[in-house]
């Protein structure tokens, strides 16, 4: 085993390999790996943040939901009250209307009755008069009995 010029050749080869690795292999690989590490770190941070955001959002939505429920209840209550009021009012109105209609009908009836009475009275009086006239025409003149007839008519009115 003797040393010879192979030694020099190998030193050159070694130098070239190390130089190549130093310039073209190590730096891009390390840089890429560091970039990846940074990316992962950033990703973890981001996910943590978004988890927090989700938690916040959840809380907010819960709050909003509760508020909405309250609001809805309020609206419902209002609506109930309103409807009760409306029902009450319409009931009142209806009663009033009924009273009014009934009243007017009554007065109408009374008027009718009065009218009928009047008509009846007139008809009756005239028919009586004509009957009397017919009877009296034969015996007595009409004027001598006019007072008696009028008197009896007054009695009838009462």
């Amino acid at each position, binding site marked *: *085993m*003797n*040393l*010879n*010029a*192979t*030694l*020099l*050749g*190998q*030193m050159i*080869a*070694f*130098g070239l*390999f*190390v130089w*190549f*690795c*130093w310039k*073209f*292999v*190590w*730096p*891009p*690989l*390390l840089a*890429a*790996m560091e*970039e*990846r590490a940074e*990316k992962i770190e950033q990703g973890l941070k981001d996910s943590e943040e978004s988890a927090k955001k989700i938690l916040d959002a959840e809380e907010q939505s819960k709050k909003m939901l509760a508020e909405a429920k309250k609001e809805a209840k309020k609206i419902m209550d209002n609506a109930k009250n309103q409807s009760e009021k409306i029902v009450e009012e319409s009931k009142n109105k209806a009663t009033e209307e009924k009273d009014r209609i009934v009243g007017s009908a009554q007065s109408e009836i009374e008027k009718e009755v009065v009218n009928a009475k009047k008509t009846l009275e007139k008809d009756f009086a005239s028919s009586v008069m004509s009957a009397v006239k017919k009877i009296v025409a034969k015996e007595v003149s009409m004027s001598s009995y006019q007072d008696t007839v009028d008197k009896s008519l007054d009695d009838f009115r009462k």
Partner: protein
Amino acid sequence: MASESSGRTFQEYLEHHLQNLVYGPLPAGHERKLYSKGEDEATKEAYCQEKNLDYDGEKYCKETLTEDGWYLANNKTDVEAMGFWAFHIDTMFFSVLLGGIFLFIFSGAARSFSLDKPTKLQLFVEMMIDFINGVVKGTFKAAQNSLIAPMALTIFFWVLLMNVMDLVPVDLIPYPAEVLGIPYLKVVPTTDLNLTAALALSVFILYLFYSVKSKGFIGFIKSISLHPFGPWMLPANLFIEIIDLIAKPLSLALRLYGNLYAGEMIFLLIAGMVSINLTSFAGLGLNLAGITLSLIWAIFHILIVVLQAFIFMMLTVVYMNMAHEKFEQH
């Protein structure tokens, strides 16, 4: 396996497997010998004649070079004649191939990096980057230096891939290569001292560079001369510190080399057991034992392979940290 089929003794089989494929200059007049293949003398001679070489009457074909030139070594004498300016083709080929695979995978992952849809390969690469980054951050604290982590990554994966070649069965690649005409082939680059020494030396040069850079030249001299006994024992300090200094690359290189070379050697020895013929009862037993041992050693070796790559990387980071420390008077 190969020792039987290629007509070698076990000794020759071992030597063959422990020899790199060397390419280097040979002077004119050098006598080259080539191992001849064949059952008897006639076929051996025919083998040599086929290659236009002389036959030496025993084992080798011979050729005397007429001019200087660059050749693939056929044997140890060729290697010795080549001297320093020879190259281990196999070591360089496999190491560069494996380093290329490493860079291809990692740069591919870097190019197609997806933040939110990672592939499995990308996840693996990320895991490794994370692992190396963790080790470097935990150990290298003296200063900021963008080179240390990528260097640690390169060392770890390159050495790991080269070590893993040790788990490839010892004859799986060299034997077909030999059939194709490649005389020697060592597929585990880290069993070549040249490679481990190159890594260690590179790390050592960086160590010296950063030491001087962070402490200043004077500070660096002080750090090896005024420690550990104080200025009045300067020669002793220098002696200890220089040994300490030299021990760093030496131990780095030899630890990796030794571990992997020994591991490979054991695989070869076990492979030698398996090569004995299958006809006899004892031979069959040896084969079974060899296969079992090979499996056990391979499983154990997985640990060594990863551990040695990690240790080399770790020590590099530790040394770099030491180099970046400011000089402190104790």
